[in-house]
């Protein structure tokens, strides 16, 4: 709305949203998932990437290897499949442009970050963004920590990691590689040169089992093995490899061994298949690549013959945990077996290797850091990430990085707000109610193209090819937009009940006195009510008429000749044939988000004509909106007809749908 001479609405704004969508709630760093999915659905990858980067400095990494707690929370889980949130994050990183670094005004404080894994990169990014002078000290030759040296290239290729690291370093971060703090340089030296030091070295030691033969020559540890693979070294493994361990690292080791030429790879683990800590996807993919899994076996001895390993002797494990869920394996000594092996690789856990650092450690060797302030026993030295908490997911490591960074901001600037903003908790929205579920069309997840397993096993090339833009848009359209739906500006509401009449899910209700309210659990964020509200009292998260007007002005900013501006429904990323040489497109979640005023404004802003390209019926994300879209299109046509400008509107026929579900 333009200037309001009547100032009674001046302060009016929508009520704040007090609920988080479960995807956001389950994400340790609370990324605004529906926000960036909507941007992807509208083909706005750079905007999507910006939303992700607000919370996650490693979108390209997390888009590939995050364990996706968000997807467990997705409210589509009890409708069909959860939305492929992580893969869409990758699409944002693949197709979006990383924004230019704009750090805050430089500050005098110098911060040393030891280690450049996900926690270290996050701390460095957060603090450099706030103007601190940050230097990363990394013992290895290249940055990335476990992301580079622990995660195999077929899951996270170097170029994908470098994309994120380059963006972080562009903030003006200094890097010192090949220096091990504690041995090459002491902590005191660092403290003399820096205001604060952050220890984020992770878990660099591989734990071996104390069994006879474990020191044989052909017994390897997971981390050095994966590091060698990441550096492109060839290791002679022989034909038969036995991997000991049941976690994701064991799966990575087994699959890497297959790629290094091992013909038979057996994974032996203590846990039963249900208890294994490895994620189901990893286990399944390992099996498809020809890895054999042997559960419930406990290693007894590495059998060696003339300095060479010839096998791993195991005994049956009856149970791993006692009644209190403590680790206390019980064995059946009578049931034994030997797995023949040329090489045995232990992937049985990691430990922190920081005894040279000079800070107080736990009995298990981790750094003791205060759970709230992240401070260690040495003043001005902070610690976070796996070195404090033990093994965790990458996204937890990022959360830990944010936390320690904001603790440092608080301690050095006395500003506690950023820290408070980080731990802001919100209740999550509940399940999709039955009434709404019956009105939702099931739409299966768009399957991503992958290398065939017989091909994949011969190379370290990335297995997942990534969504195409078309597939990403189609998948993002599946998002239910939880909590991004209708919000009321009470002061403006005229209680006309139009919202009540257009909502297919009965999300609006009336209280005594004629006051409207919206039920976030049933709202589908389709925007039907927003589009019909005469008082402009309803708004959506991430959409407003004012923003639409700005998009129109931006896209028409370059003058053209005989320009056609297409408003295209995001349900159909393929544009129907539109005549003319100068055709520009704005994709919207639903054509209902194009107000009549916006369409008419476009004709004043340089477009010779507008086209309203609706979606294919079978694809429509909001089927109930189709008749409203038709009504609106007819109204715009009628207005233009009254102005004798019928030719300024094109309503193209439906465009073709690509079938992305065939795979």
């Amino acid at each position: 709305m333009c200037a309001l001479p009547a100032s009674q609405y001046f302060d009016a704004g929508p009520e704040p949203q007090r609920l988080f969508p479960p995807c956001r709630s389950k994400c340790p760093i609370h990324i605004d998932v529906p926000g960036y999915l909507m941007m992807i659905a509208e083909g706005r990858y750079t905007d999507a990437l910006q939303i992700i980067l607000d919370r996650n400095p490693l979108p390209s990494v997390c888009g590939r290897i995050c364990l996706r707690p968000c997807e467990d929370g997705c409210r589509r889980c009890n409708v069909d499949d959860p939305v492929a949130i992580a893969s869409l994050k990758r699409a944002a990183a693949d197709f979006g442009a990383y924004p230019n670094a704009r750090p805050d005004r430089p500050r005098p404080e110098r911060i040393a970050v030891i280690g450049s894994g996900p926690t270290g990169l996050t701390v460095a990014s957060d603090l450099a963004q706030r103007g601190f002078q940050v230097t990363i000290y990394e013992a290895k030759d290249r940055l990335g920590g476990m992301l580079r040296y622990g995660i195999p290239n077929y899951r996270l290729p170097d170029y994908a990691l470098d994309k994120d690291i380059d963006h972080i370093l562009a903030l003006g971060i200094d890097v010192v590689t090949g220096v091990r703090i504690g041995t090459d340089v002491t902590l005191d030296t660092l403290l003399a040169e820096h205001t604060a030091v952050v220890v984020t070295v992770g878990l660099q030691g591989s734990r071996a089992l104390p069994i006879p033969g474990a020191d044989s020559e052909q017994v390897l540890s997971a981390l050095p093995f994966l590091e060698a693979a990441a550096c492109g070294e060839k290791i002679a493994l022989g034909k038969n490899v036995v991997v000991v361990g049941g976690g994701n690292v064991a799966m990575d080791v087994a699959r890497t061994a297959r790629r290094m030429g091992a013909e038979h790879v057996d994974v032996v683990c203590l846990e039963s298949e249900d208890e294994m800590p490895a994620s189901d996807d990893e286990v399944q993919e390992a099996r498809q690549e020809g890895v054999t899994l042997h559960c419930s076996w406990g290693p007894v001895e590495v059998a060696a013959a003339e300095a060479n390993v010839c096998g791993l002797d195991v005994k049956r494990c009856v149970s791993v945990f006692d009644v209190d869920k403590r680790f206390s394996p019980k064995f059946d000594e009578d049931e034994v077996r030997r797995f023949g092996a040329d090489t045995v690789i232990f992937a049985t856990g990691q430990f922190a290797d920081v005894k040279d650092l000079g800070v107080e450690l736990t009995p298990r060797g981790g750094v003791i850091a205060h759970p709230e302030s992240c401070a260690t026993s040495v003043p001005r030295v902070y610690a976070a990430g796996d070195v404090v908490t033990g093994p965790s997911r990458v996204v937890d490591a990022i959360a830990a990085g944010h936390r320690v960074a904001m603790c440092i901001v608080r301690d050095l600037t006395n500003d506690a707000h950023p820290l408070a903003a980080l731990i802001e908790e919100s209740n999550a929205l509940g399940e999709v109610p039955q009434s709404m579920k019956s009105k939702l069309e099931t739409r299966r997840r768009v399957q991503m193209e992958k290398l065939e397993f017989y091909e994949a096993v011969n190379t370290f090339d990335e297995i997942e090819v990534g969504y195409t833009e078309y597939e990403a848009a189609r998948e993002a359209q599946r998002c239910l937009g939880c909590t991004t739906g209708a919000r009321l500006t009470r002061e403006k509401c005229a209680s006309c009940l139009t919202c009540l009449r257009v909502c297919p899910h009965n999300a609006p209700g009336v209280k005594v006195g004629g006051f409207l309210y919206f039920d976030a659990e049933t709202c589908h964020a389709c925007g039907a009510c927003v589009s019909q509200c005469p008082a402009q009292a309803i708004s959506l998260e991430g959409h407003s008429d004012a923003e639409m007007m700005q998009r129109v002005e931006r896209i028409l900013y370059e003058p053209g000749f005989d320009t056609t501006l297409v408003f295209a429904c995001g349900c159909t990323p393929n544009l129907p044939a539109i005549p003319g040489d100068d055709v520009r497109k704005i994709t919207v979640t639903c054509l209902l988000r194009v107000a009549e005023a916006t369409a008419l404004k476009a004709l004043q802003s340089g477009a010779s004509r507008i086209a309203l390209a609706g979606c294919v019926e079978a694809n429509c994300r909001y089927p109930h909106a189709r008749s409203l879209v038709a009504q609106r299109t007819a109204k715009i046509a009628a207005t233009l007809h009254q102005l004798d400008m019928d030719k300024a509107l094109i309503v193209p026929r439906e465009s073709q749908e690509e079938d992305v579900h065939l795979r």
Partner: protein
Amino acid sequence: MIVMRLKPIAEIREMVSRHRRVLLVGCNTCAAVSLAGGETEVETLVQTLRLASAQFGPATEFSGGMLQRQCEPEFVEKLDLEGFDAVLSLGCGAGVAFLSENEGIPIYPALDTLFIGAAKGLGSWQAECSACGKCVLGETAGICPTTRCAKGIMNGPCGGVKDGRCELGDRDCAWVQIYDRLEAQGRGDQFDGLGDTKDNSVNSMTCEWDMNPQAGGSK
């Protein structure tokens, strides 16, 4: 509620053709509920008139604004017309008239005021009352003959009724409906008592209403 609808654009443009800076003012009560004069409709009409002005001239500036109600002095006081030489009101007739009374520049109606009605559904209303000043709905089973009968007669049905439909073809016969509903309510016998002439002077002779005249008026 008072129901309104937008006038044809050509008619609106003609009305304001001699002005150069026009303010469109919506009304957030009946006009908004009629989906004719809320903020959305004001914004749409502003864009329509700007487009027409840019395409065909004359060069007139259009802006928009809202009032909670155009028929209340306390709300109307807030209107700032500095720099405007005319107002297009997206309110009912009362709004246009009341603005005209209180402001020194011409006020034009962008809407036609149709009737006092009730919502049938989304964007659809039924005329129920003509504000005649002499309500007979108690006797006519809640169906207003002045409003719903095309002739507004008090002693229908007339000879134009066929199969319960009015000869105009656009509606059911109000008098047949009155008869049917009285029957359904078990008071069909009262139908014969209807048909007294109505005192139409109440409507035409009541130019204002002050509930406290003795105390020197409500103001």
